[in-house]
């Protein structure tokens, strides 16, 4: 972090006012961060503050905003649709995260055992490189009730066709399935990198002690993967709570509101129902609070930042 040692301004080539200004660290520092500073203030800091301010107002974008105190928050908390959207979001996260993480660990462990091929790893992240919209489109087609290949397959093996996105009981799990497909490979590659940091010698010692592969996985692999797993879990839970694109393409919040997650709820407040920026921003502030709480609980509970490696050496 030490700065470059700058030569004294009296040296050749550094004389004169311009020379001294051009090498003034304080001035240069601020000059170099100026564009990013403008970007941060205008599009991150002020909007974040403005969100909170708008949430205390009644505002439809056309007439002047009117201060209403906590009325928007009271509106949300007494709105059944809001609680329902929260419940749907949590259900989605509960489908999405466990399955996705377990599959990612399985893929990573198996891949690491047999191959160093970066082509294989590349193939596994391909879905993650695709836009959500396109991935959703793939599955709307594959799961189509009449023509979808998955349904034809299910019919052929005797299970019968399923409505998937069209069935209120299956819709949210189907959306979760789509995102599991998109993210499992990406998370597997993160975990794969974590596996590479575990010293081979630990496994050799365990083998000498007579531990089988299953015992080695639970005793060595999983505990030492914790830092990577914390990263994977924290980032994917935050992302999972903000599910929107897939729903916008596949179900538009339906059928019968079965996939109206929290972002869909907020979106509807801004663009579909009576335009109400106050309620929309209030709901987004509540979402932010939920995300912070969930993240704090996760990092505490998972002891982020600590490694168990020292215990083994």
């Amino acid at each position, binding site marked *: *972090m030490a*700065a470059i*040692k700058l030569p004294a301004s009296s040296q*050749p080539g550094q004389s004169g006012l311009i020379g001294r200004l*051009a*090498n003034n*660290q*304080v001035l*240069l*520092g601020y000059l*170099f*961060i100026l*564009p*990013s*500073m403008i*970007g*941060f203030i205008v*599009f991150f800091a*002020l*909007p*974040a503050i*403005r*969100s909170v301010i*708008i949430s205390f107002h009644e505002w439809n*974008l056309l007439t002047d905003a009117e201060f209403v105190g906590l009325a928007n928050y009271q509106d949300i908390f007494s709105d059944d649709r809001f609680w329902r959207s929260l419940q749907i979001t949590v259900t989605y996260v509960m489908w999405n995260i466990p399955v996705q993480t377990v599959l990612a660990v399985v893929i990573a462990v*198996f891949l690491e*055992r*047999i191959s160093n091929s970066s082509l*294989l790893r*590349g*193939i*596994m*992240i*391909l*879905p993650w*490189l*695709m*836009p*959500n*919209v*396109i991935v959703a*489109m*793939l599955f709307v*087609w594959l799961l189509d009730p*009449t*023509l979808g*290949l998955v349904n034809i397959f299910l019919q052929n093996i005797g299970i019968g066709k399923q409505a998937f996105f069209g069935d209120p009981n299956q819709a949210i799990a189907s959306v979760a399935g789509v995102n599991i*497909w998109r993210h499992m*490979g990406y998370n597997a*590659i*993160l975990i794969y*990198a974590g596996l590479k940091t575990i010293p081979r010698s630990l496994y050799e010692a365990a083998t000498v002690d007579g531990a089988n592969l299953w015992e080695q996985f639970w005793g060595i692999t999983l505990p030492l993967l914790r830092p990577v797993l914390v990263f994977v879990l924290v980032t994917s839970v935050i992302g999972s709570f903000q599910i*929107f694109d897939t729903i*916008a*393409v596949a179900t538009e919040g339906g059928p019968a509101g079965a996939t109206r997650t929290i972002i869909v709820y*907020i979106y509807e407040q801004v663009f579909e129902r009576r335009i109400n920026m106050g309620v929309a*921003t209030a709901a*987004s502030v509540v979402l932010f609070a939920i*995300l*912070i709480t969930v993240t704090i609980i996760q990092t505490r509970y998972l002891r982020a930042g600590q490694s168990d490696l020292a215990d083994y050496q």
Partner: protein
Amino acid sequence: MATLSRTNGTATEIREPKRLNVARIITWIVVGFMVFITLFPFYWVLRTALTDPDFGTLFAHASDLLPTNATLFNFERVLGMIDPSTIVGQESANLSAGTINFWVYLRNSFIVAGLVTFGQTLFSSMAAYAFARFKFPLRDQIFFVYLTGLMIPGIVLFIPNFVLIKQLGLIGTFAGIVAPGFLMSPFAIFFMRQFFISLNKDLEEAAMLDGATAFGVFWRIAIPLMRGPLLTLGLLTFIGAWNEYLWPFLVGRDESVRVLTVALNVFKSQTPQGAPDWAGLMAGTTVSIVPTILLFIFFGRRVVDSIQFSGFK
């Protein structure tokens, strides 16, 4: 497993390799299955895009592994090589009524992702260099505040940013779509700062002694040495901007600035209900996937490596 129990009585040196072979075969089967699950939907999109769009044909041959009556007709429609209004008769009944000139959307996506990548990479690198090399008051505090920007959920910023872009009269312009990401992203600054910190300072100090200005050192020495990380960051930024849906949907719905992700969903919602234009949709999807696949073919290994890096930040 049967093989295992049969070998139970024999000597260890014979049993060991056999056991490993079974494990390897199972591992390969699991990995092979995952690769199949990952790649098959892409094949199915292509297969559908090349199929005769007539609903009767699609229905009768829904599970054929190869395209039925293979044709480029869908690509010609989607790329505007055939005027939709000239398609007459029975065949037009289930074709999308939407405007389907994907060249325009492809161009728009390139403009948006290109501008965001250029601005964000340049200005974030400048800031990162300042954070890594210069000493100025509040440097570390400013950097920390930038990092908190990573934790704010998109929706909290989207609503006030949408209001701001609307008040500036930039709805429906490239400037409006690009603005929030053009000057910085907290991740980009963090990413580049890591590389600048680990860069040896000798060359820069030598250039200083020779009388180069600090900007000259940044531009002619530090930046060229950072070609690898800059390319990686550029790729990740480009893919992220290319995949964005909600923001360009909010501010750039107008035909003239509509990007691919938004266009694809508009195209889908314009298809007639009962019998969607699947072949056309999948041709559009294929066209949208091609640029990402090309990036993947040329830079796949770099993307994989950078993802592995991001897990350890």
